[in-house]
C-alpha cells in the first residue's frame, strides 16, 4: 500500500485554511499536531451522546462514558505494547506524567543525599526541572549525559555516569530540538545492571515511530496526546505494573481511593491511584480515535513517510545559502524535526517572515535551553513534519527562507 498523503490531508480540516493570504504550510507538529476529522468527530459524538462522569455513576450515560474511557485506555495500551491496560495512567500531558514519576517514585525509593539521578543535555525542560526539584527535596545529585557536535548523546562516559549510586535515569527517546532518535538500549542495559530505573520521555517518538515498551525495556514512558493527532489536555504515563503498584499516589482526591475515613485512607490500585479527580474523558475518547487513525495507516508507514520527507528537507535546506542544521545531518537515527540557523538573521525574524507567507515554524528555545546553549545559540528556528507533510511544503519553506534573506540581506 502506498502512503497517500493527499488522502490523508483531506482528513485534516485545518490544512485547507489560509494564513495571511497563503495556503497554510504547517511545519510545527513537534509543538502540537493537527487533528483529523475522525478525532474531532469522536469527541463531539461523545459530548453529544455519551457524556457522563466516569467510575461513579450507575446510570446509562455514566456507564457509557466509563466504557468509552476504559476502551481508550485499552487502545493506548495495545498501541505501545503494554502488558495490561492497567499500566496506562492518563495524565494531563507528558509534563504531568514525568512529575508524577519524580514525586511518587522519588518517594518510593526514599531518595537521599548520595543518590544520583541521570538525565541528558538534550532534554525538554519538562524532563529537567522535575528532577532538579526532586534533588532539592531529597538531597540527591543530578547528573547528565552531554551531547556531541553531531547532536547525539555522548555515551563514552556511560559506565561512570550510571553507577551504583544511580537510582533513576530519565532521558528523551527523540529530541524535540535536534530530531535525534536516541539508541536507548545501552542506557537501559547499564541502568538495570546497577539497579536503577529508567523513564523515557517518548513525547516525540510515540507519535512518529513504532514504539513497543517491551522492546524498549524501560520502566516508565511518558507521552502526550496533542502531539499524536489527539486533543490537548491528555497525556500518558506507562509504567511496569509492579512498580506502579508499589508507588504512593501523586495527586489526591476522588477516584484514587479504596476507602476513606476521617483518620486515614487506603488507595486504589493503579491506574486509578494516579488519576485523582475527574479525568479528561472526552480527551481520552479523542486520543483513542487518534490511535485508531495511526493504526489504520501503520506506524511503520508513518515513520517511512517522515524519513522520506526528512531526507528531502535535509537536502533542500542544505542548498539554501546561509542555512545550517543543528543535529544529525542525515536521516539515519533522526526524525522529522529540523532545527536550523539562518546566518545573520535571528530566529524570531525568520519565523515572522515565514508566517507572512503562511509557513508556520517554531522559533525560540523550544523549552530546551540547555540544548541551545550546547550549540552556542540563544534560539533556533525549527521545522517539524508529520504524516501530512508534503515535499511541496518543504519547497515553500525553502522559498520562504529566500525571502528571509531578501528582507535581511
Amino acid at each position, binding site marked *: 500500500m502506498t502512503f497517500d498523503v493527499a488522502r490523508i490531508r483531506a482528513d485534516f480540516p485545518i490544512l485547507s485554511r489560509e494564513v*495571511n493570504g497563503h495556503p497554510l504550510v504547517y511545519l510545527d507538529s513537534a509543538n502540537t499536531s493537527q487533528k483529523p476529522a475522525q478525532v474531532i468527530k469522536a469527541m463531539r459524538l461523545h459530548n453529544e451522546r455519551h457524556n457522563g462522569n466516569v467510575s461513579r455513576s450507575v446510570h446509562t450515560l455514566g456507564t457509557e462514558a466509563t466504557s468509552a474511557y476504559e476502551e481508550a485506555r485499552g487502545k493506548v495500551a495495545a498501541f505501545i505494547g503494554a502488558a495490561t491496560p492497567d499500566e496506562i495512567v492518563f495524565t494531563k500531558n507528558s509534563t504531568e506524567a514525568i512529575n508524577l514519576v519524580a514525586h511518587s517514585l522519588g518517594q518510593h525509593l526514599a531518595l537521599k543525599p548520595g543518590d544520583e539521578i541521570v538525565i541528558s543535555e538534550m532534554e525538554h525542560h519538562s524532563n529537567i526541572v522535575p528532577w532538579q526539584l526532586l534533588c532539592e527535596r531529597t538531597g540527591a545529585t543530578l547528573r547528565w549525559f552531554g551531547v556531541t557536535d553531531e547532536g547525539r548523546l555522548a555515551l563514552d562516559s556511560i559506565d561512570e555516569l550510571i553507577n551504583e549510586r544511580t537510582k533513576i535515569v530519565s532521558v528523551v527517546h527523540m529530541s524535540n530540538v535536534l530530531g535525534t532518535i536516541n539508541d536507548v538500549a545501552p542506557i537501559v542495559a547499564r541502568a538495570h545492571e546497577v539497579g536503577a530505573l529508567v523513564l523515557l520521555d517518548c513525547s516525540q517518538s510515540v507519535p512518529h515511530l513504532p514504539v513497543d515498551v517491551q522492546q524498549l525495556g524501560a520502566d516508565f514512558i511518558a507521552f502526550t496526546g496533542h502531539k499524536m493527532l489527539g486533543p490537548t489536555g491528555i497525556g500518558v504515563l506507562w509504567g511496569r505494573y509492579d512498580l506502579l503498584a508499589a508507588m504512593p499516589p501523586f495527586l489526591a482526591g476522588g477516584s484514587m481511593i479504596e476507602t476513606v475515613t476521617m483518620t486515614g485512607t487506603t488507595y486504589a490500585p493503579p491506574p486509578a491511584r494516579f488519576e485523582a479527580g475527574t479525568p479528561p474523558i472526552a480527551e481520552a475518547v479523542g486520543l483513542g480515535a487518534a490511535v485508531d487513525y495511526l493504526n489504520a495507516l501503520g506506524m511503520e508507514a508513518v515513520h517511512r513517510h517522515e524519513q522520506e520527507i526528512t531526507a528531502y528537507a535535509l537536502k533542500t535546506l542544505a542548498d539554501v545559502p546561509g542555512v545550517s542544521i543543528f543535529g544529525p545531518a542525515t536521516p539515519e537515527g533522526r526524525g522529522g524535526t529540523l532545527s536550523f540557523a539562518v546566518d545573520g538573521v535571528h*530566529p524570531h525574524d525568520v519565523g515572522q517572515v515565514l508566517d507572512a507567507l503562511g509557513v508556520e515554524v517554531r522559533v525560540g528555545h523550544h523549552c530546551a535551553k540547555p540544548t541551545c546553549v550546547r550549540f552556542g545559540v540563544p534560539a533556533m528556528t525549527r521545522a517539524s513534519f508529520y504524516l501530512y507533510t508534503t515535499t511541496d511544503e518543504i519547497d515553500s519553506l525553502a522559498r520562504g527562507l529566500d525571502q528571509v534573506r531578501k528582507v535581511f540581506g
Partner: protein
Amino acid sequence: MMLDGLYQEIILDHYKHPHGRGLRDPFNGEAHHVNPTCGDEITVRVAASSDTFSDISYDGLGCSISQASASVLHELLQGRTAAEAAGIQDAFVALMQGRGQVEPDEDVLGDGIAFAGVAKFPARVKCALLPWMAFKDAAARAGVDVTAASSEVKA
C-alpha cells in the same frame, strides 16, 4: 506584503548598523533582562551623574526588533536628564501598548516612531520593550527613577 509595517527601513537600518552598541565603562547601573518565551537577552548599562545619562551602553542577543529598539533607545536617551528620559520612555511604552491605535510624536520619539507597526504584532511587543525595561532597571540601580507618574508597565 503585510510585513512592511513591521520591518520598517529605519528598524532594519538600526539592526544592521546599531548605534552605541557594546558595554562600556564607567557605569553605575546595570541590568540584564531576558525574554523567557524566546530567550532574547540584553544587558544595559547607564552612567548617570547629577541626573543626566552621560552614557548608555548595551549588548544583547536578539531579534531585529529588540536590537533595533536598543539602538534607538541609545540614540534617544543618551545625554538626557532623568525627567526627559522618563517622558520619552513613557511615550515609547504607550506607543507599544497602543495596539496600533496610538499616533506617535516624532518630536519626542525620533526614529522610535518606526516601531508604531510593531504594536500590531502582539508577539513582538515584548521584543521592542525588552531594552527599555532593562534600561529602567539599570537607571534605578544607578539611583535614577525614570518611572513617569503613571507608567506601570504590563508587557
